[in-house]
């Protein structure tokens, strides 16, 4: 699972460089996120702009990634493509995660 991240103080931006987070790669995504976010950053923004498709396995892996951060840390999502956003909406997971249309929008928002 190809992802890159950069850290700026308490903020970490993780960019997923894959087009799909689906059953085929859900476990790899979860493991890669655990390794990538094994640090002190209080706010992690997951940039999904390159992801054109997720299924419920992918959604579950993103939920797992959030749970893996542990208390006091948050996972926000940015750049959701329409198909990906609709999975969050249909499962009402858009009430659980903060969704931003772009990475810039996520960066400009205050992380409360």
């Amino acid at each position: 699972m190809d992802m890159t991240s950069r850290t700026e103080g308490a903020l970490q931006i993780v960019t997923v460089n894959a087009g799909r987070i689906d059953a085929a790669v859900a476990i790899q995504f979860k493991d890669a996120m655990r390794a990538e976010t094994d640090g002190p950053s209080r706010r992690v923004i997951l940039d999904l702009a390159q992801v054109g498709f997720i299924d419920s396995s992918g959604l579950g892996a993103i939920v797992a990634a959030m749970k893996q951060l542990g208390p006091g840390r948050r996972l926000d999502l940015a750049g959701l493509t329409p198909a990906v956003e609709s999975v969050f909406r249909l499962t009402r997971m858009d009430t659980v995660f903060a969704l931003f249309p772009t990475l810039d929008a996520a960066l400009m928002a205050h992380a409360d």
Partner: protein
Amino acid sequence: MEPVAKPRITAHRISLNTRTGGLAVRNLLGEAMVALADWGHPAEARSAVELVLAEALNNVVEHGYGFREGGPLGLEMELTAETLTCTITDHGRPFPDEALPEGRAASLEGPTAELPEGGFGWHLIRQMTSDLHYQRNDGRSKLTLHFSVV
């Protein structure tokens, strides 16, 4: 001389077959999406079909075949002016009581640490299809999914 009327294509049909293992589901979905695009099915509708088929196919791989490789998996699609009908066939285990899961929406209340990581599939399938049927005959499962063409 009167021009010959062009034949109106009233239905498109395709039959795809594979066996479980590796990226079989991804590849099957890819072929299905190419076919729908070729048939002029709109992009937004194709996304919905892709998600439903992914959920149903993943379900066969996990519950029908217990992640066993080499299990036959078939997808037939027929598109008319009114409906897209997708039929998934497999030779795996039947649904318990040969009935489709209800797909009740999971509760998202409670602490973050207790959020569900699965169980969304059938809710998604039911929300995004206009009808579905399940048949079991001679060790074969046949799941038929209908999508209204708006």
